[in-house]
């Protein structure tokens, strides 16, 4: 037995979730949740549709960051002129999720709440130090995306909380280059074997800031800031690139599945980190 309710405000939505913490689930686009219901993985008694909360949809450039409403679809993010200008690798990552039918329905907030280890946007958002605005019945909090996703399809969201927006810091004065590489090892429509998100801020030809995040290899996006420190204050040259790529390949503890063994994932992680860094390093 599953019932469908469609609250008109965020408050109502949180109340509905709070009323049945085990049995109520928030429904945004539904591509993940309905899929899990069909597969028998979840059996919610109440679906709290966020469909009426249209004010949670939209993209704005604010001072120092982009605000993306949680109900914004992945396709809307992918084609947004604001995102394409200020955060092109996020637009790219969103444009690569699934297929166009998924992207037309799936929302950015839903994507983060699902915490699919193989999904593309989380890695990019972690690398950009993006944060989520999380609304509960009585309080609002700001959670870095890296802390939101805690494990396999698990987040730090309480049962009565919903994400209302994602804030993506923008480059400001820095010369920012970013790249997202999605590697599929089987058919072109496969889930990724490895996803690599790279973001570098350059100042007078040397690296002022660098983040490298690897997705689809483990439960959560893999980011090791200590491994990129050799690059700070220096040009991003071939040797530095190789060192970072090699260090990451050694540091990750990748899963094994039909898309690749742990050994294979290490190999291609190194390859794609290197390719992504080479891409951002080139003029």
């Amino acid at each position, binding site marked *: *037995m*599953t*019932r*469908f309710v*469609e609250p008109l405000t965020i408050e109502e939505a949180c109340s509905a979730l709070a009323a049945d913490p085990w049995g109520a689930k928030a*429904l945004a686009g*539904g*591509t993940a949740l*309905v*899929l899990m*219901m*069909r*597969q*028998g993985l*979840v*059996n919610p008694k109440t*679906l709290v*549709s966020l*469909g009426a909360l249209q004010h949670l949809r939209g993209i704005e450039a604010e001072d120092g960051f982009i605000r993306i409403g949680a109900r914004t679809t992945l*396709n809307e993010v992918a084609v947004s002129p604001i995102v394409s200008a200020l955060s092109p690798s996020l637009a790219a990552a969103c444009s690569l999720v*699934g*297929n*166009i*039918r*998924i992207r*037309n*329905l799936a929302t950015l907030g839903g994507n983060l709440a699902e915490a699919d280890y193989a999904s593309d946007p989380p890695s990019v958002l972690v690398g950009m130090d993006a944060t989520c605005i999380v609304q509960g019945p009585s309080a609002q909090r700001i959670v870095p995306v890296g802390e939101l996703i805690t494990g396999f399809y698990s987040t730090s969201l309480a049962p009565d909380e919903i994400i209302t927006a994602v804030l993506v810091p923008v480059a400001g004065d820095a010369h920012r280059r970013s790249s997202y590489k999605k590697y599929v090892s089987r058919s*072109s*429509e496969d889930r990724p074997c490895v996803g690599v998100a790279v973001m570098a801020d350059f100042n007078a030809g040397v690296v002022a800031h660098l983040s490298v995040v690897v997705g689809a290899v483990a439960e959560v996006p893999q980011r090791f800031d200590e491994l990129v420190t050799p690059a700070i204050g220096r040009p991003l040259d071939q040797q530095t690139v190789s060192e970072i790529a090699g260090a990451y390949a050694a540091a990750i503890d990748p899963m094994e599945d039909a898309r690749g063994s742990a050994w294979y994932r290490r190999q291609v992680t190194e390859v794609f980190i290197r390719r992504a860094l080479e891409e951002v390093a080139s003029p």
Partner: protein
Amino acid sequence: MTVDDSQDSPVAHMRLSVNGVHRDIEVPDDEALVTSLRKLGFTSVRAACGIGMCGTCTVQVDGMVASSCLLLTRQVSGCELVTSEGLVEDGALSEVQQAFLDHRAYQCSFCIPGMVLTVDACLRSHPSATVSDVREYLSGNLCRCGTYPSILEAVHALVAARTAGGDVR
């Protein structure tokens, strides 16, 4: 396939707008749109994979293609739904359908309505789409017979006709 306890889900009376016509239907809260549409007789909408991968359940929702196997009917009240049947106007095939017909873009045809709706949506929303753009757009519509080359020939013709000055109807 639904996961359920012994109790039936609540049923709502809905008025769906399908191909420009309002249809009344009683819909359980957890019923998928593909199921509702097939109950209403729109058998061009099919289910083959249950997980949104194959595209045989494609419908247009407010002009955008969506997997009706992953949409609950309750989610689309107030939306304009278009199925392949709806592209036919006054007994005449739409331009996209005609191109598919002309280029033999069908074999078993289980996937074809979904392909047609997707090409239609792409060309409508992308005025300067190239063949390559449409091909990317079709990446999530699977065909086991391997009719892709004929489909691409139809797309070639549509893009060429448009470049030559027509609009996609």
